């Protein structure tokens, strides 16, 4: 999936994956897609809830070798 920017939050524990994601998202325009890489297990639920509460849309996610990848479209 095509993304404008990648946020690398691998190895970071909460709250940093979301803090970094938010910062990254602030630089995007509405409709653009941000890609997030994280290794913290709690990150997925929190990213979904955060996206919902801020009006962004989680388009897809996958796990490859312990790395969770997310694609979030800016609302």
């Amino acid at each position: 999936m095509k993304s404008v920017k990648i946020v690398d939050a691998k190895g970071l524990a909460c709250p940093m994956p979301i803090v970094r994601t938010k910062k990254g998202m602030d630089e995007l325009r509405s409709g653009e897609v941000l890609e997030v890489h994280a290794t913290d297990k709690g990150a997925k639920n929190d990213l979904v809830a955060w996206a919902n509460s801020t009006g962004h849309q989680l388009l897809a996610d996958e796990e490859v070798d312990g790395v969770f990848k997310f694609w979030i479209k800016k609302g």
Partner: protein
Amino acid sequence: MMSTNFKAQLMKAKEVAKIIVNKEDLFILDVRNESDFNDWKIEGTSIEIINIPYFDLLDGVDPALERIPDGKDVLVVCAKEGSSQFIAEQLAESGRSNVFYLEGGMKSWSEYLEPVKVADLSHGGELYQFVRLGKGCLSYMVLSNGEAAIIDTNRMIDQYESFMKEKGVKLAHTIDTHLHADHISGGRALAEKYGAMYHLPPKDATEVTFEYQKLEEGNDILVGNETILVQPIYSPGHTIGSTSFIIDNQYLLSGDILFVESIGRPDLAGLAEDWVGDLRETLYSRYKDLSDELVVLPAHFGKISELGTGGLVSGRLSELYKENPGLNIQDEEEFRRTVTENLPPQPNAYQEIRQTNMGKIKPNDEEQREMEIGPNRCAVHDN
């Protein structure tokens, strides 16, 4: 130079437990996401708790400050610790004093055991209840003449070990009233470590991969030079092997069959319809034949309101026959419906937990911890 900076401080699960059993005031700001909060949270009759996810406070903590009452201690809680520290420090920087964050987060809370003395037993023996406040599990330790027996041991065996060390006793027996589905038993690991005997009901142990002592009626267990009698009573229903104990002729350890305000559910091994009759027989006949002066000590509490003085969860059998709704369903068909339909959700990972307790799978520590997260849900009316 004048400083108005306050610092957020760590609070341990043990300190939170003391606040809850002593019914002291505490305001909790839980910063996990809404679904985790709704699934499971810190409860206490003197606790006031709100949920604002940490990611809704990244632009500033004002929405939280507005809802935090003046004067009370504030404890910020998250899953592991990081996010609560992050938020607590901002609350402190904004000038709020008495701000704490929970060391180890809900993971630590789930694991902490509060030892509560139940009573002195005959010939200098003692009985303790270990209250796992974060999950509702209750386990027990019988102490007598330098020996200990532990019933329904939790996974965190180090907490029993330090307690035994403090008391100067040697472990002789660990006993599980049944094959647990809501938490991983520490009984076998602890028995192996100290050369003690691990007892399990044989009817629950048909698929286990290890050696164990058969827990059956007639095989009484003695603790401390034969001074304390632990007498097994076969009482199926939650599982086919479920076995209760009468300790020192005074205490009925009812496992997951009978709780203070509810009764056990028969569905966690997938055989609800088969076991309903056993459950009814145990609760409405076998237990009725016991002395109603016995004090019931269950393996779980369902509601935090069940905690009595010092955190003790107990009830006299005669009182339970009057007050417990699960013991007062006269119609057999209605009973069947109550214990098989509209049950609360099943405990997290209960299938994997049963497999682990049978020795069939061997998850690592981190995986075991994850499997146990959340409430226990072993009773029919937990919610």
